[in-house]
C-alpha cells in the first residue's frame, strides 16, 4: 500500500477510491432506474422534457462547474491570487447572455440540438453539418480539459505515478461515463449531474465555512494570512500577478475576459440542457437556479483559493503533483485530514465523470440527430430507434477519444484548456445563434461563414499561439512555430466571426424573412414548441 499512498502525503488512496466507488454505485442505481422510461429519441436526448426548472438548474450547475472550475480556479487563485478571480467572474456574468438572449428562445424553436435552431429557416443539410462540426469541436476541447484534469487527479489522489497505472484509472473513469450515457441517456446523465452538483456545492460550502472559521469569519484576515504566507507584499491580493507582466499578457487577459463572458451561451452541452424542460418558462427558471448556485460556488472558490494559499502555501501547491490543480485537494487534507481529502477527491472525480457524460451525450446527439438523421439520411430515418442507436454508438466512440485524450493531455492547466473551448464556442456558435434568433436577414450563407469562419480562425490562432509552441509552458516545448502573440484568441476571433456572419449574409441573395416571422412568433410565444413526454 505504500506505493499507493504517495500522491498526497497522509492521503489514503484506498479511502479515496472507496468514497468514489460509493458515488459510482449510488449513481449507477439512479441511472438504471432512470433508464426504464428511456424509449424515444426525445427521452434519450432530452429526458422527455420532463425536468423542472430547479432540477434542470441544478443539473446545469453540475454540468458547468467542471473540474476546471473546482480545481482550476481555486488553484489559479491560490497561486496567482487576484488574477485567478477573473475566471469565476467571467464564467458567472456569462450566464446573463444565456438568460436574456438565448435560453427561452432556443427552447421554443428547437428540439435537441443547436442545429435545430439554425435549420428552422435555413437550408437543413449544410447548416446542420456546420452546427455538428462546431459542436464536436467545442466538445473535443472541453473533453480534453476534463480528462486532463482526471489525469492530474489520478497522480495526485491515488498516488499512481506510473503512466500505465494512470491510463488504467482514466480508462475506468471513461468506461463508467459511457455506461451512464448508454444506459441512462439524458435522464440518467441529468440525475448524475444533480447528485454531483449537490455534493460539490455542499463540499465547497463546508470547506469555505471551515476556512473562514479559522480566521474568525473575517475575509480580510484570511486575505492577510494568504498574502503573508506568499511573501507579505500583497502581490496575491492585487491584480496583475499573472497577466500584468507585459503589454501582451495584458491583452491576453482582455481576450480571455471576452471569451469567458461570451462563450457560455455557445457551449453545446449547456444549450442542450434547455431542451430537457417542458416550457420556456421552466428554461428561464433553470437559468435562475443555475446563476444562484454557480454564483455561490464561485464565491466559495474565492475563499478556498485564498485559503489554500494561506494554509497550504502557494509554493507547496505549485510543486505538488498536479500543480495548481492540487490546491483544493491539498486544502481539504490540511483541514480535515484523509477523510475530507477522500470526499473532495471523490467529488472531483464525480465532477469529471458528470461533465464528460454531459459532453458525450451532447456530441453524440449532435452527430446522430444532425449528421446521421438529417444530413446522411436526409431526414428519412426508418425509425427513431435507429437514430438513438447511432447516438449510442457515437457515444462509445467519443468515450474512447476522451480516454485517449485524457491519457495524452495530462499536466495542462484545466482552466486554461476550458478557456480555449470557450473561445471556440464564443466565436463559432454564439454569433450564429444570436443572428439566427434576432436578425431577420440572416441566411444559410451567413450561418456557414460565421460557423466555419469562426471555427477556422479560432483553431488557427490557437495552433499558432504561444499556448501550443514556443514557450516553456507550451503544449510542445522545443519547437517554436507561433506567430500569434496571445494565448487566448477571443479578442480577434469573436469580432471576426461576427463580421463573417454579416458579410456572408449580405453577399448571398437568399432571403428568409417570411420564415423568420414564423420563427420569431414561435420563439417569443412558445406556440407549437416541443411538449413534454407524458409516461
Amino acid at each position, binding site marked *: 500500500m505504500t506505493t499507493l499512498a504517495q500522491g498526497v502525503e497522509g492521503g489514503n488512496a484506498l479511502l479515496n477510491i472507496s468514497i468514489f466507488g460509493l458515488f459510482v454505485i449510488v449513481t449507477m442505481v439512479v441511472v438504471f432506474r432512470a433508464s426504464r422510461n428511456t424509449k*424515444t*429519441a*426525445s427521452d434519450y436526448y432530452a429526458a*422527455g422534457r420532463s425536468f423542472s426548472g430547479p432540477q434542470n438548474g441544478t443539473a446545469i450547475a453540475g454540468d458547468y462547474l467542471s473540474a476546471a472550475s473546482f480545481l482550476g480556479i481555486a488553484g489559479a487563485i491560490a497561486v496567482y491570487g*487576484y488574477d485567478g*478571480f*477573473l475566471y469565476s*467572474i*467571467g464564467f*458567472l*456574468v456569462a*450566464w*446573463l*447572455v444565456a*438568460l*436574456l*438572449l438565448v435560453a427561452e428562445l432556443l427552447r421554443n424553436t428547437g*428540439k435537441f440540438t443547436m442545429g435545430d435552431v439554425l435549420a428552422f429557416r435555413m437550408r437543413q443539410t449544410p447548416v446542420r453539418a456546420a452546427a455538428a462540426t462546431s459542436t464536436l469541436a467545442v466538445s473535443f476541447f472541453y473533453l480534453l480539459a476534463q480528462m486532463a484534469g482526471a489525469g492530474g487527479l489520478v497522480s495526485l489522489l491515488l498516488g499512481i505515478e506510473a503512466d500505465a497505472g494512470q491510463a488504467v484509472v482514466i480508462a475506468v473513469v471513461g468506461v463508467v461515463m459511457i455506461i451512464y450515457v448508454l444506459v441512462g441517456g439524458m435522464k440518467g446523465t441529468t440525475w448524475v449531474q444533480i447528485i454531483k452538483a449537490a455534493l460539490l456545492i455542499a463540499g465547497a460550502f463546508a470547506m469555505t465555512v471551515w476556512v473562514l472559521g479559522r480566521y474568525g469569519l*473575517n475575509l*480580510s*484576515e484570511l*486575505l*492577510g494570512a494568504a498574502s503573508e504566507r506568499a511573501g507579505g507584499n*500583497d502581490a496575491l*491580493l*492585487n*491584480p496583475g500577478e499573472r*497577466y*500584468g507582466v507585459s503589454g501582451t499578457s*495584458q491583452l491576453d*487577459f*482582455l481576450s480571455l*475576459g*471576452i471569451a469567458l*463572458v461570451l462563450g457560455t451561451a455557445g457551449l453545446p452541452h449547456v444549450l442542450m440542457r434547455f431542451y430537457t424542460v417542458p416550457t420556456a*418558462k421552466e428554461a*428561464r427558471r433553470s*437559468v*435562475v437556479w443555475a*446563476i*444562484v448556485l454557480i*454564483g455561490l460556488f*464561485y*464565491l466559495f472558490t474565492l475563499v478556498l483559493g485564498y485559503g489554500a494559499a494561506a494554509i497550504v502555501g502557494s509554493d507547496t501547491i505549485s510543486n505538488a503533483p498536479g500543480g495548481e490543480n492540487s490546491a483544493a485537494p491539498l486544502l481539504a487534507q490540511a483541514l480535515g485530514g484523509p477523510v475530507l481529502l477522500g470526499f473532495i477527491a471523490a467529488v472531483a472525480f464525480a465532477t469529471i465523470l458528470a461533465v464528460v457524460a454531459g459532453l458525450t451525450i451532447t456530441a453524440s446527439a449532435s452527430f446522430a440527430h444532425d449528421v446521421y438523421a438529417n444530413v446522411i439520411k436526409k431526414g428519412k430515418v426508418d425509425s*427513431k430507434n435507429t437514430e438513438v442507436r447511432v447516438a449510442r454508438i457515437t457515444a462509445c466512440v467519443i468515450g474512447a477519444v476522451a480516454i485517449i485524450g485524457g491519457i495524452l493531455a495530462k499536466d495542462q492547466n484545466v482552466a486554461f484548456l476550458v478557456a480555449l473551448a470557450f473561445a471556440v464556442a464564443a466565436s463559432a456558435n454564439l454569433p450564429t445563434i444570436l443572428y439566427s434568433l434576432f436578425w431577420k436577414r440572416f441566411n444559410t450563407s451567413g450561418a456557414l461563414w460565421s460557423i466555419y469562419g469562426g471555427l477556422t480562425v479560432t483553431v488557427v490562432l490557437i495552433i499558432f499561439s504561444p499556448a501550443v509552441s514556443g514557450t516553456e509552458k507550451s503544449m510542445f516545448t522545443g519547437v517554436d512555430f507561433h506567430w500569434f502573440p496571445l494565448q487566448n484568441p477571443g479578442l480577434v476571433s469573436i469580432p471576426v466571426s461576427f463580421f463573417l456572419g454579416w458579410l456572408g449574409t449580405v453577399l448571398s441573395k437568399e432571403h428568409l424573412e*417570411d420564415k423568420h*416571422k*414564423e420563427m*420569431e*412568433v414561435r420563439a*417569443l*410565444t*412558445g*406556440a*407549437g*414548441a*416541443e411538449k413534454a*413526454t*407524458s*409516461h
Partner: protein
Amino acid sequence: MSTTEPSTHPPGPETWAEVHASAEFQQLRKRLRNFVFPMTVLFLAWYLLYVVLADYAHGFMSTKVVGNINIGLIFGLLQFVSTFVITWLYVRYANRKLDPIADKIREDIEGDAQ
C-alpha cells in the same frame, strides 16, 4: 406515441405572418427587445469596465479600503451582485410584462390549430 412533432401546417404561413403583424405580438416583441438589448449592453459594459480596470489600473484596484480588502475585490464582488440583481429584474419583468401576452398569443394560435 408520446412525442409531439411540431405542427408546421396549422396555422399556415399566412397566419404566422398575420400573428407577427398583430399589435399584440409587436408589443411583446418590443417589450422583450426594449429590456434585453439595453440590459445586455449595460452588463457587458460594466463587466468590460471591470476587466479593463483589473488589467490596466493596478494601482487603483490595489487601493485598500477596509483591512486587506481592496477596491479590486469589491469591484469583483459587485459583479456578483449586479448579476444577481439583473437576473431578478429580468424574471420580474418577464413574469409581469412578457408572459401574459405570450401566453395569450400562444393560446390563440394553438386554439385555432385544433
